[in-house]
């Protein structure tokens, strides 16, 4: 058990918490769009689809540097996303089925590649699969730079295309009639989502990343009816989850950081679901009761 103050001065805590906050901000921002688009499961698909890219890059280059693996992950994540979008566009298969199909195909292919890599007489393949499982406490300074750059680019894109993103998510067809090409918008939004996921993979890993893409946004949605407020709040909740999660994991031992972050984010969701004014369960119950009462009085 360490004092809070000395913790703030600690190098590991600073790096990890900064990384976790950045990851939370990014996934909160991008998650808002995925949730509103009803494509939040994309996080799951992309993070699983990253595996074949990771292994392929290693097989081709023999490099296990974070940058190289991230590049591979991004490429295969993007390919998977575009295949999902292509399937919805050109067939009658629905989003969730297309997603399940592509996700399992890619992950399966990744496992095949991984097995192949393991059969190589080369000890260097060790730990490839760990890339997509993340390890928040092992964050390095260089990871922070990658996150900072990715985060800034994503923020800039969001600000630049704010109007288009809003229009496109609300009314895709109308956007099309205004000559905002849905294909371009799809590319933009999925590229943003994939980037966010790949950045987060390093921190919280494949399973928890999809949670981080949904939880802050879902919590934020409960409190506001304005997109701008929702996006800001969602990023904020994501960042705070990162901070508190790291704190919890730092103050004691044997609590892994990534899961701690997700537990905090989920707590925000539960609180929001229950207590948010207007949309929260309690508030809705209360309003209904009131309505019934007035109705009974009048009747």
């Amino acid at each position, binding site marked *: 058990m360490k004092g809070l103050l000395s913790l703030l001065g600690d190098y590991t805590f600073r790096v990890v918490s900064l990384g976790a906050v950045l990851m939370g901000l990014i996934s909160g921002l991008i998650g808002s769009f995925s949730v*509103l688009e*009803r494509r939040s499961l994309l996080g799951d698909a992309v993070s699983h689809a990253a595996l074949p890219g990771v292994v392929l890059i290693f097989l081709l280059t023999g490099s296990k540097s974070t940058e190289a693996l991230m590049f591979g992950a991004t490429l295969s994540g993007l390919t998977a996303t575009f295949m999902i979008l292509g399937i919805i566009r050109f067939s*009658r298969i629905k989003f969730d089925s297309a997603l399940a199909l592509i996700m399992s195909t890619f992950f399966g292919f990744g496992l095949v590649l991984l097995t192949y890599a393991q059969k190589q007489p080369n000890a260097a393949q060790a730990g490839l699969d760990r890339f997509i499982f993340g390890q928040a406490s092992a964050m390095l300074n260089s990871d922070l730079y990658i996150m900072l750059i990715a985060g800034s680019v994503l923020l800039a894109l969001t600000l*630049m*295309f704010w*109007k*288009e993103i*809003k*229009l496109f*998510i*609300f*009314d895709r*067809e*109308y*956007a*099309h*009639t*205004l*000559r*905002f090409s849905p294909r371009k918008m799809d590319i933009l939004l999925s590229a943003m989502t994939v980037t966010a996921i790949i950045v987060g993979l390093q921190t919280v890993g494949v399973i928890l990343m999809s949670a981080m893409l949904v939880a802050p946004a879902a919590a934020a*949605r409960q409190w*506001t*009816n*304005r*997109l701008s*407020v*929702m996006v800001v709040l969602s990023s904020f909740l994501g960042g705070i989850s990162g901070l508190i999660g790291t704190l919890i994991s730092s103050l004691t031992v044997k609590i892994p950081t990534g899961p701690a972050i997700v537990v905090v984010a989920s707590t925000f969701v539960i609180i929001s679901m229950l207590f948010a004014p207007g949309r929260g369960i309690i508030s809705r119950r209360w309003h209904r009761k009131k309505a019934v009462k007035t109705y009974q009085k009048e009747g």
Partner: protein
Amino acid sequence: MNCFLDILGNYVFVNSRGLDLNIGGELYSGSLDDTQSSSDSFITTSLNNVDNIGEKNNEIKRKNVLEIEDLTVAYAENPVLWDVDLNIPEGQLVAILGPNGAGKTTLIKSALGLVPRISGRIRFFPSDREKPATDIAYVPQSESVEWDFPATVLDVVLMGRYGHLGWIRRPRSEDYEIARDMLRKVGMMDYSSRQIRQLSGGQQQRVFLARALAQQADLYLMDEPFKGVDARTELAIVDLLRNIQAQGKTVVAVHHDLQTVKEYFNWVVLLNIQVIASGPMRDTFNEENVRLTYRRTEPAKRGGKNR
């Protein structure tokens, strides 16, 4: 074979009144041009009888704002639209009328390029190639979007200005001004900062209309603008449509109600997978055509192949 005769009958029937109706086969394509001049004069006289037509009509009606040629759309092999040829003249209030599954919505969507077509040519403002695409305003069915989206009424109406702005540029204060004006026009100004989820069906419809109006377009394509709307709103919308028309603009609306169509519109397209008839309300909307449009058997599905 049966239906082939029907179509032929239609053509003869309509054509005898000198209407500009193209039933689509090469068979008749030559004769259409011949009838052009006489049909024009006929439309002039007949249209003058219709209510709510501005004086400008005499010059306007010559131009088409939308020409559809040979349009076929199919979902999984079932034709939804079969060989549709249609011209929409400028300055009219046009109703697209037909039973469920007649392809009314698909006609509008495929004209806008929202639905892929198997064949066909679509030309907006054929006489004026310079016209930008923002001159077409689309009003989708209100249930086609997620109203739970976190946006206010003003946000949505402002979207009507996005086409003029193009990529990246932000709405300017004049765009806000236009959006507010349009909200006033549809009587929704008091709701401008309301979350769109809290609106009734009629209010949602009005917001969509305001959004289209904010485009300040020349052609309005509306998918069931009266759906889920109370009687008062319906009248308000009709007023609005007439207002649009009075400015020399064109409205094409999918309509459902045989009772009101005559009162609200002055031009009608009777559609049931194929165009059964199309022309000025007074001449085209008659019992025979309506019967052909609404009868149970679906002639076009099989009949098309007989051509």
